[in-house]
């Protein structure tokens, strides 16, 4: 049985403005690349930005239970790869 990876791209206001607007392409790109081994979706605020000054580390993406800070498409794809291993 293959491992299944769950990816949540935070589309809350903070993450969106700080860069997750540009991560929306993952929602199209990931299924093409990994098929149903990886489940990806845009989700409302994960609540990670509200603590202290943590907005500056947005955008956040959750790959299973791991949090990717200052996420970029490349960082998220690398995280997915490491979870698929």
């Amino acid at each position, binding site marked *: 049985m293959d491992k299944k990876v769950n990816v949540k791209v935070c*589309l809350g206001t903070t993450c969106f*403005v700080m860069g997750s607007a540009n991560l929306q392409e993952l929602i199209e790109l990931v299924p093409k690349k990994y098929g149903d081994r990886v489940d990806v979706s845009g989700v409302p605020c994960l609540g990670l930005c509200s603590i202290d000054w943590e907005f500056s580390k947005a955008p956040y993406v959750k790959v299973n239970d791991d949090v990717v800070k*200052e996420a970029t*498409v490349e960082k998220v794809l690398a995280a997915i790869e490491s979870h698929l291993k």
Partner: protein
Amino acid sequence: MSMNTTPKQTSHLKREILVRLIKAYLSEDFAENTRLIPYAMRPKGSEVPYRCCIHKERAILRDRTVAGLGMSIEEADDSELLSTLAHKALEREIPEEDPLTVLTTACKGCVPSRIYVTDLCQGCVARPCVNTCKFGAISIQNGKSVIDPEKCKNCGMCVQVCPYHAITKIIVPCENACPVGAIAKGDDGHAKIDFEKCISCGKCVAACPFGAVHEKSQIIDILKNIKSGKKVIAMLAPATMGQLPCTPAQLKEAILELGFKDVYEVAQGADVTTKTEAKEFEERLEAGAEFMTTSCCAGYNELVEKHIPEMKPYRSTTKTPLYYTAEIVKKDYPDAVTVFFSPCNAKRKEAMQNPNVNFVLNYEELGAWFIALGIQVGECKESEFKTQASAEGRNYAVTGGVAKAVQTMLPEHLPAYPVIINGLDKQSIKDLKKYAKNGVCELGNLIEVMACPGGCLGGNGTVNAYKQALKQLSGYVDKSEHLVDEN
């Protein structure tokens, strides 16, 4: 074609500073908390992600904060504390005139534009580079081509003829992006904007990989007016819809939460522009005119004023959607302080020339404001606009949208043949000059000009990725009523 699709660390930095600046303004001690921004972002012992040392990182963050305060980085005295500058920003009644400023210390890393022979040079026998150079700038030394910088005119002929692609042109991104040659690296190695030539299009802001070109923010001016209890009214450019993860009606509610008294769609003014411009087009064509250009893009208007004055007779005299919207707002609220929510830098210039428009806010600044206040736009309730704009007006933000709107208002016997200038660059400016000089455009009779590729959604002050923004905006347009001609 660049359409604001690449996520950039420079945008992240600029937005972080804006959030901190707004938080500072809303805190007990604006001046002191502004002074601390570079230290808060790079505290003692923190990593040094970009520059040589923590001191340079802080110095550059300090300069970025100066732009956030709405001031010229070039003119700011380095010895003045950010707290002093914060006080000065508060005293200002109107924004500084030139809307852009260059952070020269960030700009040093970029080598001047020139032709360069790489290691790939094979020292071949044919030597097409030597033979093709009209200026005798290339010679062979130790078996390889060498360019004499004194003689080289940067024409690029050698680049084209080298069979090994061994010669390359080193580009300065801001110079390369500027369609009118208004920004250049001087002998001191710093980029400088010539405001006599600059059309405020903001392409250099988006192009610089060091984030060295800044818009002078008016965020402090706007916050100040809201705090003092003035009736501050928001006017949202059509491109605003689709910039944030919420519906337009939720966005209106979120903006009211920022302290604005009322929110208008500039698409409402676009409907006036459409009708007026269609009428003008009809009259011109009946009088025998060959073509007419649109007049809603501020970057294009400044281009005509500064570089193609011969185009003036062919440019529509109809006012911009912002003009008509501001007029309506001032009628509804004579004591209003008006703020235009803009996708681009060029509208800052237009606003300064219009007494009915007080300030301009772009979407990076708007987004930062929501972050600073912790407003989740997607969770706001829906608040409908009092006047509903048409589908055509709301579609002004997309390339081709203006011409399409005007077309729908024309009588059948006078069809328009649109020519779409989808972004100003050196080639499209050449084309426009040709149309103006010859008084004719072979491709059609209604020329729509947008300075940014993709239209306003591709503006330098946008937040959402182009494709997603277009999808969101189109969804809104599809749900809107069509414009009706009352005549």
